[in-house]
């Protein structure tokens, strides 16, 4: 079945030509010289005031990186990247380590205002600081009702500001830039950094370990439910820079945190490199929800420019009964190479991966997940919806594996894709590896498997089948998107209406 007109129109609305975050801003920048060498790494490390162990860590990664080749297995094609032709450090010139918004370049704040992200909370934040203690208490009671979000804003290489820090600190939650964490909480960083994605993990992760300039750090202590959504907003602004951020989230026993990530970049003819690493650690009974709205500049309609997005994201369900859930809405980037994964190490732990990937123009997406079942009674669930239009290629690549000791591992995978037009491609490459007889893996890639009961229920009320399916699928997608704060979900919301009739495996 071909896609219906309604779907085509909706996808067109989020077409590459209409990228609305493509503006660039003139901001005085502090840059390292082009290229990559041990000296540049020393420079970055010095700029960040890092302790010597951190520098050693970076140098070790760099020395390893030099011996590596770029991975070639993904279904993406691009000219060879000249890693010496990039700036590895670019930071807005500003007072060192801005502590409050008043220290931040107003031009920079205007950027975020333009992007419509909740840095506007500067006012709220200011208000909070002035209120007395009782009002503050009331505020924290209402955090969910008011839908407030604490934001860490990363501009090119550095974190410019983090909001709501004080309120979070009251709950015991540490939310700051990773550079600050390296300085202020070295014991935590030392313990957890690189414990999920080791420096030797893969080409881009190794590069990131050597040159990462900033990113977010979240620590939720034992038994604490983080009182608000945390988020990071990444903005790439400077020409010819690579953005390498590193995010580390730790949820101690029984803790809960929901984290959101959004990204945009200006419209440029050159390709820009983004190679991030995200590490999540969930101890016993902890839960981490990680959501991404990825909207890097995808290139123009002819495929010129755009971000190369090579990201390593991995969560480690280290404790028993822990849970990690990845949600991603991928609409941007010229090339996406991204596999948010879960290592289900603790017994009874569970991992989830929900993804909507929309590609248009000449975008190439190769994304999916890995669910590695190591502990007993672990379960995972993968729901992936790919929509390809224009000349784009959209690949789902996912791995589910059960190791010898992973008794009663359960997995359910469902990946559907939809093609709009005959110039694009949709591909599904699932890997299933079972080494335990009690493992139960199911993989399906058909839309007909939507619960017959649900469909019957809806159709019985006079709604035609196609609409019924759309309604059910949208109901599910909505669940995912509603987790995101409004400001982030603008692009994502447009996808809600996209039904998957005419889908192919």
């Amino acid at each position: 079945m071909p896609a219906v007109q309604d779907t085509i129109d909706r996808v067109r609305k989020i077409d590459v030509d209409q990228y609305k975050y493509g503006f660039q801003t003139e901001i005085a920048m502090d840059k390292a010289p082009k290229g990559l060498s041990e000296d540049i790494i020393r420079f970055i490390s010095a700029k960040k005031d890092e302790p010597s162990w951190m520098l050693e860590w970076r140098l070790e990664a760099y020395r390893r990186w030099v011996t590596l080749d770029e991975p070639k297995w993904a279904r993406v094609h691009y000219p060879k990247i000249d890693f010496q032709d990039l700036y590895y450090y670019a930071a807005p010139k500003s007072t060192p380590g801005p502590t409050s918004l008043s220290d931040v370049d107003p031009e920079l704040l205007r950027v975020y205002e333009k992007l419509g992200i909740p840095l506007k909370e500067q006012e709220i934040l200011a208000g909070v600081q002035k209120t007395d203690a009782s009002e503050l208490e009331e505020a924290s009671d209402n955090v969910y009702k008011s839908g407030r979000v604490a934001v860490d804003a990363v501009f090119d290489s550095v974190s410019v500001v983090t909001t709501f820090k004080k309120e979070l600190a009251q709950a015991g939650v540490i939310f700051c830039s990773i550079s600050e964490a390296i300085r202020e909480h070295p014991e935590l960083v030392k313990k957890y950094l690189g414990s999920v994605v080791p420096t030797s993990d893969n080409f881009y992760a190794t590069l990131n370990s050597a040159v990462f300039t900033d990113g977010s750090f979240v620590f939720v202590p034992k038994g604490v439910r983080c009182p608000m959504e945390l988020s990071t907003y990444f903005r790439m602004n400077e020409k010819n820079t690579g953005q390498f951020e590193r995010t580390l989230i730790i949820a101690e026993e029984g803790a809960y945190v929901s984290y959101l990530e959004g990204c945009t970049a200006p419209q440029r003819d050159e390709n820009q490199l983004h190679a991030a690493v995200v590490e999540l650690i969930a101890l016993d009974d902890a839960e981490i929800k990680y959501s991404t709205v990825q909207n890097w500049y995808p290139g123009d309609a002819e495929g010129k420019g755009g971000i190369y997005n090579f990201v390593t994201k991995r969560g480690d369900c280290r404790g028993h009964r822990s849970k990690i859930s990845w949600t991603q809405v991928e609409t941007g980037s010229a090339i996406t190479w991204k596999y948010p994964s879960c290592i289900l190490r603790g017994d009874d732990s569970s991992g989830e991966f929900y993804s909507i990937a929309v590609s248009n123009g000449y975008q190439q997406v190769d994304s999916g997940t890995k669910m590695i079942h190591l502990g007993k009674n672990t379960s995972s669930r993968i729901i992936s919806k790919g929509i390809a239009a224009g000349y784009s290629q959209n690949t789902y690549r996912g791995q589910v594996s059960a190791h010898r000791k992973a008794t009663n591992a359960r997995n359910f995978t469902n990946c559907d894709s939809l093609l709009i037009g005959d110039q694009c491609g949709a591909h599904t490459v699932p890997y299933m590896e079972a080494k335990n007889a009690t493992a139960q893996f199911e993989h399906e890639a058909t839309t007909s498997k939507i619960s017959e009961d649900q469909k019957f229920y809806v159709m019985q009320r006079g709604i035609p089948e196609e609409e019924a399916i759309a309604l059910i699928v949208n109901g599910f997608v909505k669940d995912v998107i509603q987790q995101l704060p409004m400001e982030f979900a603008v692009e994502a919301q447009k996808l809600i209406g996209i039904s998957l009739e005419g889908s192919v495996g």
Partner: protein
Amino acid sequence: MNIHTTPQRTPAETALIDAFSDRLSLLPGDGTVMLKRDDAIEAIKSGLPTRRIESWHYTDLRRLLTSVPDFDPAAVAKAIAPVVEGSAVLPVLNGVSSTKLPDIDGIAVQRLSEKLTDGSIAPGLDAYGADDAIGALNTAFVADGYFVDIADGTELDKPIELQNLQAGGQTHVRFSVRVGAGAKAVIVERQAGEGAALVSSVSQLLLEEGADVMWLIVQEQADTATHLAQFKAHLGKDAKLTLFVMNAGGNLVRQEVVVRTTGEGADFTLRGINLLAGDTHTDVTMVLDHAVPHTASTEVIRNVVTGRARGVFQGRINVHQYAQKTNAKMACNTLLLSDDGEFSTKPELEIFADDVVCGHGATVTEIDHSHLFYLMARGIDEKTARGLLVKAFVAEVIEELDDEAIVEALEARLDGWFVAHG
């Protein structure tokens, strides 16, 4: 990963390269054929595929192929009775075809060694891709086999059985079959033998317009044998092919299935059973190209894994840009019966056309406890109940074949395996 390395040749690689220079003078072929052999051995010289090569991800041939036996001219393989009684048998014993060719109306049979000597088979010797290690191995060493031509409109009432039997050493065999327009045939490809043999076998099938073929591959090698096989088919307009693959033997087995629909209305069906036991490795890899509009395919693979066996199924369906209205479905179901066994599957879809219906499903599980309970509640002991359920799981695939004699013959093979492996 990705660290620069200069790989050293493994003993198996060295043995193959040495065997080639030793055998060269004995290999039949005209100039073109010999040139293709040279190209093929060059491909082997650059190394056997490793898991870095995507199509060999689960079968690291370089690591798994630990030894290569010498050619054994003294080995004597015995002819065996055909799977279906009354079939016309074309035996290849230890890599040598028979001089006695059957005389059946509408069928022309030639020894492949003759086709190699006169060079007429040369175009078929090309590898289909850079990762075609089995094709390269076979092209380098192939010495015999059969060429069978079934004339237009011929309808065979008895199957033809192509036997490849060995008793150790190395054999490299090729079967090339053309089925004329509107012809109908059942062809059995029998792969069996004893001893620690290295076997490469390539079958090529060309179906002309409206041809209808059922091709059964019955592989029952000794559990010491390395069996590297390839089945390649081109389906013309309205051609219909039902391929049935049964793997029930071998130590290291890779069966590749490469099918391309080149005519509208072509219909391909694959049914496979992998019965895996002992400390063995079995890999079935399929690449299916839907190259033209309005073609259909369905694949169902059922696997039973016992002991320390490792099984692999990789299936890739490519739907080309103009292949609109393709209807492709693939399913791979595995019963993993032992904690030491493992099964890996990779069902891939590559789709470039928008008006298609494609789907795939894959499951790995153990025996359903409620089914077991149902049978045991009726007084059947656990072992028998398990046996019944496992047999039902695979027999379902056989029963779909609409030829009673064949269903019976295959079920007999199945029973034989269950008796041997409990």
